[in-house]
């Protein structure tokens, strides 16, 4: 990772990668959602509402994956002082917040026809709501730290502490009695029929690629603004 500590070297890779990730992600999402809406069969228990899974599951994965990325980048910032780690962590925060919100809203819209309620204070839903508030806190703290001209260490520590919530979300369905169903896809296989699995996998890959493109866009914007600020400081001196 230290190879990409040099922003010029990072940008040389990031520029073509942004377009590639963005367009391939968008194409896979279009294919997956068309498949999920029009081709995949309805579930024998859930009926048509199972189609919400094709946007809900990738959003949940990216909400949790986003914070895992923030924690890893924060660790790299604190331990190895990687110059791009803080920028990467901040770039993940807004898309991470968005996908956590998408997960909560789509889950709620799935819950009404399936469980008969939009919301239940069970372990999975509550811990996901906590993740949403962690993202909001992280963004507020990061903005305040930048305005004060801080080095981002406090934000990085918050990013690491917040990662405690990730295993809580994952294992909440095993630790507590919950309305939310347990894990359907594991390393060894899946309990979902292949006719419903392929749009889910395509959708998850597509949204993940687009998430990567969004993070790169936000990192490129932050690096360009840092370059302008440095130039202005040199001119003022």
């Amino acid at each position, binding site marked *: 990772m230290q190879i990409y500590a040099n922003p010029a070297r990072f940008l040389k890779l990031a520029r073509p990668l942004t377009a590639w990730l963005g367009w391939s992600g968008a194409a896979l999402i279009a294919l997956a959602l068309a498949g999920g809406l029009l081709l995949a069969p309805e579930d024998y228990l859930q009926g048509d509402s199972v189609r*919400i899974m094709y946007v809900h599951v990738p959003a949940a994965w990216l909400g949790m994956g986003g914070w895992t990325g923030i924690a890893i980048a924060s660790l790299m910032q604190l331990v190895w002082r990687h110059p791009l780690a803080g920028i990467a962590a901040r770039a993940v925060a807004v898309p991470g917040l968005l996908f956590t919100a998408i997960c909560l*809203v789509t889950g709620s*819209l799935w819950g009404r*026809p399936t469980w008969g309620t939009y919301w239940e204070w069970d372990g999975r839903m509550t811990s996901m709501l906590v993740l949403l508030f962690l993202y909001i806190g992280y963004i507020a703290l990061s903005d305040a730290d930048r305005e004060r001209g801080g080095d981002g260490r406090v934000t990085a520590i918050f990013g690491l502490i917040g990662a405690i919530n990730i295993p809580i979300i994952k294992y909440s369905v095993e630790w507590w009695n919950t309305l939310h169903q347990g894990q359907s896809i594991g390393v060894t296989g899946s309990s979902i029929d292949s006719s419903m699995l392929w749009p889910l996998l395509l959708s998850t890959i597509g949204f993940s690629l687009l998430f990567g493109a*969004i993070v790169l*866009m936000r990192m*490129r914007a932050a690096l360009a603004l840092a370059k302008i600020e440095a130039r202005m400081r040199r001119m003022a001196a």
Partner: protein
Amino acid sequence: MNHWPFILGAYAFALLGTIGVTWSSWSAMRRAEAEAEAVRRER
């Protein structure tokens, strides 16, 4: 109960949110890189 209003609501929220954050990130990147390039040329 008709499930389709819930399905369409979920897809609309997900797609509008995704398009919105992609568009805002892309335009912020373009604007910042154009400004940085203009500053570089001024030297």
